[in-house]
């Protein structure tokens, strides 16, 4: 019976093939951290976002058939590479999206280029993805270390935070974030007094905090993410870092981290994001839809970025009427201007950098927060043309001269 059904389906496809010549089949793989420290930043919430994008797009473009699969890279580059290889070779996946953890993202980016598929990075941060390690198959969507550094770093130096000490997560992402922030701080006239590199997933930061405290730096820059950032800030409050006159700069803080810290601990923290669920009506409406799949949670910019990236990808595939040639699809994505309800109008640059504004936020005090998820107040908007690294400074081989 099953075989018969299969034959029937095949016959139907063949029959329809003539009638709808434009029928395009697309397979999208959401490769993320599904079970560990970054799974609230991307993870199942990214899958939900991708589904919403597909739902919205296929409503007006019924000729595009999209299938979504997902995988857990467990923050290990080898596992991520293995999944990517299998998806491209065996499962015939056309595009991989999300992928928090820069180590994994850099590995998957290289594989994607070798197999001529498409890789849309929303979750990973390292600006190397559009710098020395850029390629014609990868687009870096939501944010990157340069933008975070430039946003938070420059803003804090301008308001008097001119001496810095870094707590850095000891892998590709942390190093990139520390390097980019140090450059932004020095450019703005500040000074870096010291740094300490801690292993990923560290439980106790008191030793590192003590070193930061004795450095007497005005700003302690947290070049880490997720649970590491939460632990640093939580224990920093305990050790009287903020009371002692020093200030934390959360270089990569997501809405989910603020929820985990609670406003009493997180209040006053300055951070940069490119998307916040409570910014405007479009974002709030989308959040409501997203929450039917993830009740009680608030979407992060990474998850919103997945929605935006998938939407633009599908538009380009529909325009080309083909999804198999990764380079051609990415070239089309760079040619078409981007436009979606969450990030508005934007562009994709030659080096694979998606361009949109960034926002400097401050975490509200508990007394200012009116309802669940009411986390931020807007301090400044960094216009799109200043938010990201200038094209020429990235040393991306795709941008010659």
């Amino acid at each position, binding site marked *: 019976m099953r075989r018969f059904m299969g034959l029937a389906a095949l016959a139907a496809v063949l029959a329809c093939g003539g009638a709808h010549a434009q029928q395009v089949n697309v397979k999208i793989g959401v490769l993320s951290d599904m079970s560990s420290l970054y799974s*609230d930043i991307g993870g199942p919430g990214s899958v939900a976002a991708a589904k919403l994008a597909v739902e919205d797009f296929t409503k007006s473009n019924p000729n595009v058939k999209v299938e979504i699969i997902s995988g857990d890279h467990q923050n290990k580059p080898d596992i991520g590479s293995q999944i990517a290889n299998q998806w491209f070779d065996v499962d015939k996946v056309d595009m991989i999206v999300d992928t928090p953890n820069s180590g994994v993202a850099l590995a998957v980016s290289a594989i994607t280029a070798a197999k001529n598929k498409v890789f849309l990075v929303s979750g990973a941060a390292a600006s190397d993805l559009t710098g020395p390690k850029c390629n014609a198959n990868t687009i870096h969507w939501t944010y990157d270390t340069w933008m975070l550094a430039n946003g938070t770093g420059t803003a804090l130096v301008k308001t008097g935070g001119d001496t810095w000490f870094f707590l850095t997560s*000891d892998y590709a992402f942390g190093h990139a974030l520390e390097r980019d922030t140090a450059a932004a701080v020095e450019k703005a006239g500040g000074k870096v007094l010291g740094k300490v590199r801690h292993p990923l997933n560290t439980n106790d930061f*008191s*030793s590192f905090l*003590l070193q930061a405290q004795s450095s007497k730096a005005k700003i302690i820059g947290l070049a880490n993410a997720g649970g590491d950032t*939460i632990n640093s800030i939580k224990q920093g409050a*305990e050790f009287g870092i903020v009371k002692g006159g020093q200030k934390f700069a959360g270089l990569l803080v997501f809405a*989910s981290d603020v929820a985990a810290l609670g406003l009493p601990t997180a209040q006053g923290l300055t951070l940069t994001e490119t998307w916040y669920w409570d910014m405007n009506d479009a974002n709030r409406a989308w959040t409501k839809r997203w929450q039917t799949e993830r009740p009680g949670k608030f979407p992060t910019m990474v998850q919103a970025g997945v929605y935006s990236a998938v939407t633009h990808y599908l538009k380009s595939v529909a325009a080309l009427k083909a999804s198999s040639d990764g380079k051609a699809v990415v070239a089309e994505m760079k040619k078409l201007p981007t436009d979606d309800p969450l990030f508005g109008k934007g562009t994709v640059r030659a080096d694979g950098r998606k361009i949109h504004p960034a926002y400097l936020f401050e975490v509200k005090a508990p007394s200012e927060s009116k309802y669940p998820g009411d986390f931020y107040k807007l301090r400044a908007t960094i216009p799109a043309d200043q938010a990201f690294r200038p094209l020429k400074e990235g040393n991306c081989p795709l941008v010659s001269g």
Partner: protein
Amino acid sequence: MFEIFGIPSTALFGQLLIGLINGSFYALLSLGLAVIFGMLNIINFSHGAQYMMGAFAAYLILQYSGLGYWPALIIAPILVGITGILVERLFLQWLYKLDHLYGLLLTFGLALIFEGVARNYFGSAGLPYTVPESLRGGLNLGFMFLPNYRAWVVAASLVVCFGTWFVIERTRLGAYLRAATENPTLVRAFGINVPRMITLTYGFGVALAAFAGVMAAPIYNVSPQMGSELIIVVFAVVVIGGMGSILGAIVTGFGLGVIEGLTKVFFPEASNTVIFVIMAIVLLVRPAGLFGRRA
């Protein structure tokens, strides 16, 4: 101010104290493991998950009954201890006669289930929990700022560790327990209900893990994976101290906390590896661990 290897002495004293504080967590957790292994011969791999459950229980108690840190410190270990007793009655009691591997696999599987359930309902980012009002602030010791809460952690864990050691090594109840591990049949012949004693011992070991979890909630991120990050280190502590040795677990817990603390000053990148290097060396020189008796 003088310097040692280029590090100001004040910083070094601070780090020693921090190491001692972290050591008290290692000691508390490895103590529970040592009690369970020493008395039940079970390698309790769900210890990390039970530590996490302790922290989550503290959060839930605060959310649903409004009871703060101090009541939670008593209630959470009791609740989690009861789940431990259920686990022992339902599963573990059938495994005592089998190879260690079966207990290890069962408890490892349970740990994955506990963590998965917590992640499903609460997500991975973590839950907020703050330091109790009465323990906020801290003392300026001159060479470092010592938060009151950390001082309390060291004191409480020393009391609990010493109390447990005293009960097992120096009281009649402890003597029964130790006798029951040596020769259960003979102890039963004296009219002692050995299975019940074993069940309660497991419950107690689990409650110790939960107690450590509540202690950790105000200062560490309360997330489903908080236990699995710590448990591997704690196992290394138990192996270095000698499997099943209570005193070994306590002394090694504090000692390794200090060594790890110093590594964080001299070579921070290696701070999560140093304990395993020590474990490898100890196993080469003394396979039964520092305080273990050769089987």
